[in-house]
């Protein structure tokens, strides 16, 4: 502590170390949050359902997606990334997941929402396995923190089924 430079360096180093510890504690505090999210998806309409020239099935649908993800937000949350995936199995693959829609929720106020939309990303099967296919719609989310650990979870909604024939 014998010179100004020495003191300034000691202060800066200590201050930054403490800041790192504070960020660690802030991230740990997220573990005390027990969220209770809810979600619901209605398939309002199958717009079309075709077999492409390259023999892949494709379906376009209109969805009504509603969710309440407010309880996911803590003081250490920067944003929540949410996406909706269609999940099904085929003889060749035990699990296929196709992302149909995603969004970024920037704050708690925006976390209770409903949206009426067609699928943002194309629902294409590599093959022609979709006729009469039973599938789940799973809402996944990533709670992105301001500092520290990211938490991810999902809600599985079962009981959806595609038409038997192409339209």
């Amino acid at each position, binding site marked *: *502590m*014998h010179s100004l430079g020495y*003191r*300034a360096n000691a*202060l800066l180093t*200590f201050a930054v170390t403490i*800041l790192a510890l*504070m960020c660690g504690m802030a991230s740990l505090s997220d573990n005390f949050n027990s969220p209770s999210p809810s979600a619901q998806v209605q398939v309002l309409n199958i717009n079309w359902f075709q077999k492409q020239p390259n023999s892949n099935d494709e379906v376009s649908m209109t969805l009504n997606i509603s969710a309440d993800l407010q309880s996911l937000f803590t003081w250490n949350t920067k944003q929540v990334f949410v996406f909706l995936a269609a999940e099904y199995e085929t003889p060749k693959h035990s699990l296929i997941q196709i992302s149909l829609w995603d969004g970024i929720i920037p704050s708690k106020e925006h976390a209770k929402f409903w949206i009426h939309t067609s699928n943002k990303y194309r629902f294409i099967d590599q093959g022609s396995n979709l006729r009469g296919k039973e599938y789940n719609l799973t809402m996944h989310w990533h709670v992105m923190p*301001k500092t520290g650990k990211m938490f991810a979870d999902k809600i599985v909604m079962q009981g959806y089924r595609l038409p038997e024939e192409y339209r």
Partner: protein
Amino acid sequence: MAQYRMDWQGQKLAEQLMQIMLLAFAVIAFVSGYVMASFKMMVLIYAVGVVLTTLLTVPNWPFYNRHALIWLDPSEAEKHPKPQPSANVTQKKKPVKK
């Protein structure tokens, strides 16, 4: 400034003050941020604390020079001359040169 460097007691005080102030502001900042559910508030309070601590402990304020070092009076110093290098050392070298 009285001296261009802090005295020993002043240095100890500056170090302790710095550590205590930074820790205290960190605790206050974290608790406030958590209670107000505002990360921004935590960082802001801590930043203010760091600036205050810097202003108080880095410059050589007069209150860090209250226990001035007592240097020996020059007349006293002359009575105790600096020890000279021992004569044996120079003698050892000569035989080697021959």
